[in-house]
């Protein structure tokens, strides 16, 4: 099947039609699939570049969430005496930092990815969606490495290790969708409005404070909790806690967050496709 679609798309008789586009377009999945080799090359390039010139290399993937956890544990866990649903604060916050760090890094990098690849975008053709997609891919490697630390923490504190762990891959998928949605939206917006390069880090900072990373959802009065769940990361972060710490899943909260994540994904892709044709002209 692999070689079939490859030769079909890039074959000597394949007819490419170039026409002006009006309004909203559907994403061409087949085309995206035919270019998967390129996605692979760009993702592995991103990963290589990320680790090639740093002294710490792979250690950086672990260091960031780990040191954040330590600082948060001291400041919020000890000094501010933040409640943590009965779990030891360090592992409580780390379980949330895991998906959050991935999400924040993914949307931060993909936001600037198109503008950063302007030399490619303005000179050769390929489905532009591949660029923000490849920057999300690189963050996955970091995520996998830092998950190992979480597993160690779980052993240390003697929590988690329940059947809930099986939900982790599904949750991860949802986080990826959310990151892709926001990431592609931001990358397209940054091409059109350059000040997004400055807005994005600010948005990410604020976003973390409206996501229950440092604090548990239970801290917020019940009748206002639904507000928190409109943020798709709320349900997903709590879901990660449930999966790794063995907390019971909040199904309704998760459902809302999943729905919003999918909606964000579709909106992001749709906007991206709409403005894609103009990228080379304005980048």
């Amino acid at each position, binding site marked *: 099947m692999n*070689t079939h679609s*490859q030769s079909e*798309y*890039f*074959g*000597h*008789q*394949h*007819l*490419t*039609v*170039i*026409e*002006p*586009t009006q309004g909203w377009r559907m994403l061409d999945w087949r085309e995206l699939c*035919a*270019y998967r*080799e*390129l996605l*692979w*090359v*760009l993702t592995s*390039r991103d990963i290589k*570049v990320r680790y090639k010139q740093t002294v710490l290399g792979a250690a950086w993937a672990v260091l960031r969430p780990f040191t954040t956890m330590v600082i948060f544990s001291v400041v919020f866990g000890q000094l501010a005496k933040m409640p943590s649903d009965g779990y030891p604060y360090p592992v409580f916050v780390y379980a949330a930092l895991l998906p959050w760090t991935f999400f924040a890094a993914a949307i931060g990098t993909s936001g600037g990815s198109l503008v950063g690849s302007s*030399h*490619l975008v*303005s*000179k*050769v*053709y*390929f489905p532009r969606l591949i660029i923000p997609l490849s920057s999300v891919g690189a963050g996955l490697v970091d995520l996998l490495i830092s998950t190992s630390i979480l597993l160690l923490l779980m052993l240390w504190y003697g929590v988690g290790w329940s059947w809930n762990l099986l939900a982790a891959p599904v949750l991860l998928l949802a986080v990826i969708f959310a990151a892709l949605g926001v990431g592609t939206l931001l990358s397209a*917006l940054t*091409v*059109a*409005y*350059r*000040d*997004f390069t400055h*807005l994005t880090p600010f948005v990410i900072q604020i976003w973390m404070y409206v996501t229950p990373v440092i604090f548990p959802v239970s801290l917020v009065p019940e009748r206002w909790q639904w507000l928190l769940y409109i943020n798709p990361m709320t349900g997903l972060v709590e879901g990660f806690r449930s999966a790794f710490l063995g907390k019971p899943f909040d199904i309704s909260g998760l459902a809302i967050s999943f729905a919003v994540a999918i909606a964000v994904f579709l909106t992001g892709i749709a906007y991206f496709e*709409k*403005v894609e*044709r*103009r990228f*080379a*002209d*304005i980048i």
Partner: protein
Amino acid sequence: MTHPAIKVEGLSKEYIVGHTQEQHGTFYDLLASTLRAPLKRLRNLGGASKEAERFWALHDVNFEVQPGEVVGIIGRNGAGKSTLLKILSRITAPTKGRVEVRGRLASLLEVGTGFHPELSGRENIYLNGAILGMTRVEVARKFDEIVAFAEIERFIDTPVKRYSSGMYVRLAFAVAAHLDADVLLVDEVLAVGDAAFQQKSMGKMNDVARGGRTVLFVSHNLGAVRNLCSLVLFLENGTVDFYGAALKGLSSYERGFTSAGDRIDGSRFQGALSDHLRFEKLVCRQGGAEVAVLDPLKEFEIELSGTALRGFQSMDLSIGLFRDGFYIASCHDVPQEAAMRDGPFVSRFRLPAAVFKPGRYTIGIGASASIGQWTWGSDIASLEFSENWGGQSAERNRGVVSIPYTGERIQ
């Protein structure tokens, strides 16, 4: 009947000019203008407002290219050649019309097309292959050929940001030409390389064409176009002026230059002095009489008349003679910048016999003065020499010009 490799119907491209705030403004501007006129903004989501200035880079272009043809695309700067290639390469979308391309397309639009500066030459070859839709296996098969053609074996693992521009273009061309594309588009990139490389690329493009693939080649080097292309597409101001046999197209193009005896189109003379100098006529004389076509075997005179409009104290004026893109010679009217008053003037140049060979030469005019720096206009006029070369065959006397010399043999 074979399908055309490229089919272009009614192609038009409109650009919105200047006003960078409209192009990629700030989000702040977007918010502000939305508050002021919300409906108007929403309707133009992500687009520019209607008041921006627009111009048509291409207008109603129609042509078809059969597989295996080599088409030279010629025209003045700004005629729309690069825009046409960009649309064919799907870098930018057309405003109107329709294009059909059959098969895989590889394009070389600028030096280092699609190269990522941080990656090595090797990695970039794989990257470009992937962009073209080739699998790693396919690229690996052609890898050695590409590296050998580009002559960068020693540097293949260095990041391309360290390559010289010559190496860049060699690698870029090597990749584009070897990666098995059905249609190859080459923009005026090759001028960056040295003469040896240019020869090699012409040869390779010939091979590509003979292999049944289609080549579109944009160039100002009319000699290269003459040698390589069977067809020529002449674009003028975004429309097709001529599409057909190369020789006919090239003469049509060259005829467009002001001929000796016509009024000069001074608009080409752009720069510091363009408001201070006006050129009237360029006339050629032989044997005292004005001629339209020159006899290459006789001495001739070029006379340029013009007016110095204001502020002149001194001026240095020169004309440059070009053939097939080569700069043959420059001639100054006085040995160095000489005293000059405002008002009309005539510059005369006397040139020797039997140096300039039959064919067409173009003339550029340059000037520098006390009031303004060096200003140049190219392709302002043209000269034509008849085929009267004294019966000598062209093979015995190659070369762009003929120089006086003696040869002897001692045995």
